[in-house]
């Protein structure tokens, strides 16, 4: 088979649409022809809206189940806004999947800590699905989710469902709340020192706003976890998604193809340098 042209989108159709939060929806996209390609947790697609443009959106569905691509999109620009307004049946162009995802292969036996901030939970969800599908292969599994307020918690019903599992520790925290909220209040990195992590066994997967990831990385390092066991999903301007347009450079890395998931051992030196 000839490798598909990586620049040419494939036609998909919106199969399902679910409103998640104010300005954020989850779309299920089904290919018009053939089956959706396989993807790995942490990878992303380029989604094209007719006549508007294209934007990189992480995959947030179950890689091992379903026949669609699942994407949670927040309205933060022209293209993402157009995506959030698509109705069931609408047409979408899809290129992908692209990039390197979470380092789950080889993580057998490890304690896994997933740290999500805001919509950063979306690219971590496929990792959690994959982990739960073979839960017995891992030690402790914790997921820490930070949100702005209780109303802004993504996938809240699913998180509540997971919270009832005895083999999964779900810690939710919000930046601000009123007295009705009985969960944690505070930033998500503040949960890390009190989680009783075993630094030698823990592998940390972190996704969220870059500042939050820096704070989380520092808290993880302070907890004794080595930089090689801390992985961040970076965001830069993705245009071509195959390392040829140059836009997503982050120091020596093309975030689109070397990342988006990069180990802190590789990026720790440039993470806090302004404008890198």
């Amino acid at each position, binding site marked *: 088979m000839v490798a598909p042209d990586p*620049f040419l*989108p494939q036609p998909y159709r919106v199969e399902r649409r679910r409103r998640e939060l104010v300005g954020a929806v989850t779309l299920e996209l089904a290919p018009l022809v053939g089956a959706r390609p396989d993807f790995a947790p942490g990878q992303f697609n380029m989604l094209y809206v007719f006549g508007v443009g*294209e934007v990189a959106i992480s995959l947030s569905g179950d890689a091992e189940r379903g026949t669609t691509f699942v994407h949670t999109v927040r309205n933060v620009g022209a293209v993402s806004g157009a995506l959030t307004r698509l109705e069931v049946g609408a047409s979408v162009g899809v290129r992908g999947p692209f990039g390197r995802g979470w380092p789950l292969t080889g993580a057998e036996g490890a304690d896994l800590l997933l740290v999500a901030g805001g919509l950063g939970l979306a690219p971590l969800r496929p990792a959690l699905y994959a982990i739960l599908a073979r839960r017995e292969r891992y030690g402790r599994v914790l997921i820490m989710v930070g949100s702005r307020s209780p109303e802004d918690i993504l996938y809240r019903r699913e998180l509540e469902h997971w919270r009832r599992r005895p083999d999964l520790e779900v810690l939710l925290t919000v930046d601000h709340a009123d007295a009705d909220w009985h969960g944690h209040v505070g930033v998500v990195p503040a949960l890390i020192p009190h989680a009783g992590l075993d630094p030698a066994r823990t592998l940390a997967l972190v996704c969220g706003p870059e500042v939050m990831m820096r704070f989380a990385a520092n808290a993880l390092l302070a907890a004794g976890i080595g930089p090689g066991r801390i992985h961040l999903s970076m965001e*830069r301007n993705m245009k071509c998604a*195959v*390392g040829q347009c140059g*836009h997503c450079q982050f120091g020596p*890395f093309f975030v689109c193809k070397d990342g988006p998931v990069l180990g802190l051992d590789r990026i720790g030196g440039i993470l806090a340098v302004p404008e*890198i």
Partner: protein
Amino acid sequence: MDALPTATAAVLDRDGLQALIEALAARGFRVCGPVVRDAAIVYDEISGVADLPAGWTDRQAPGRYRLERRADQALFGFAAVPQAWKRFLHPPVETLWRVRQGEDGMLFSSAVETAPRYAFLGVRACDLRAIAIQDRVFCADDCRDDAYERRRRDAFIVALNCSEAGDTCFCVSMGTGPRAEGAFDLALTELLDASRHEFLVEVGSAAGEELLAGLPRRTATEPDRAAAASVVARTAGRMGRSLETAGLQELLESNPEHPRWDEVAERCLACANCTMVCPTCFCTTLEDHSDLSGGSAERVRLWDSCFTLDFSYIHGGSVRQTDKGRYRQWMTHKLATWFDQFGSSGCVGCGRCITWCPVGIDITEEAAAIRATPHIQGGDHG
């Protein structure tokens, strides 16, 4: 300087060079070479030796480029021209695909047009290396740009061992010239003195050998080879600039907060000229256009520059807001992180970025300034 290798070599006179151009055209190549246009020497389509810039040279300096008459009738007696061969192999504007709304959804179709088969006459050593560097970007194992690869594969390259070095040239420092090394079909050295005007031709490929066999020529003698070697040696001795490359990658990657970046940012206009003339800069942007009726749309790929504010835009703002951040990105990428990405420097020492910078910023001077006082700020005391 060693004598040129004893591989197949011949000598052409001007008529032989004319025959070379005609033979390439007869084989269906669109032959491109240097011509004088708009007070500059540029690469464009040629039909014969008469199109070449006989008797012209250029005077280059930071922020300055002027054509001048030579005392002789040299055809290749000039240094790097404003635009390298990049614009043929990696076009500034390229429509990638078109899409229209069908009954069931969008219908995408590739719009990449078949490019002509190019023959490039006079690919200077630095530009030959630049092509090899762009090959690594566009013909990577994990993702190939098929259109680029086709244009590249089809191209016939007549390289040029330089007989002239400009004031902004530093290929010797970069190890890229002035002798053309690498993948070419034929390589010329212009041999010009009071007694003759000839071209030593070396063969670099079977296609080159086949073409040469049909041209009026004579066999190269030892004195011809020695003359060609001395042309290259003379050019090597006339570099206008130099750049110390030892440890440069580590130096730049470890000095992101050097005060020199602030200093150069005060002069830099962020005009993007350096990236447009650079023969290795490969960055592009993608634009989506639709027609007024909304029935069809297309995606166009255009050269882009890391000096634009938009280049690093992520929702909320651009990562590199300042000229400092953008100049640092460009130069650090070119001279340092390029090694991490593609295994070589991204600079071939052609000097175009120096010549065409409207305020004369000199990459060799900037690198030397950082080398002179490394680790003034930043470093390990965070």
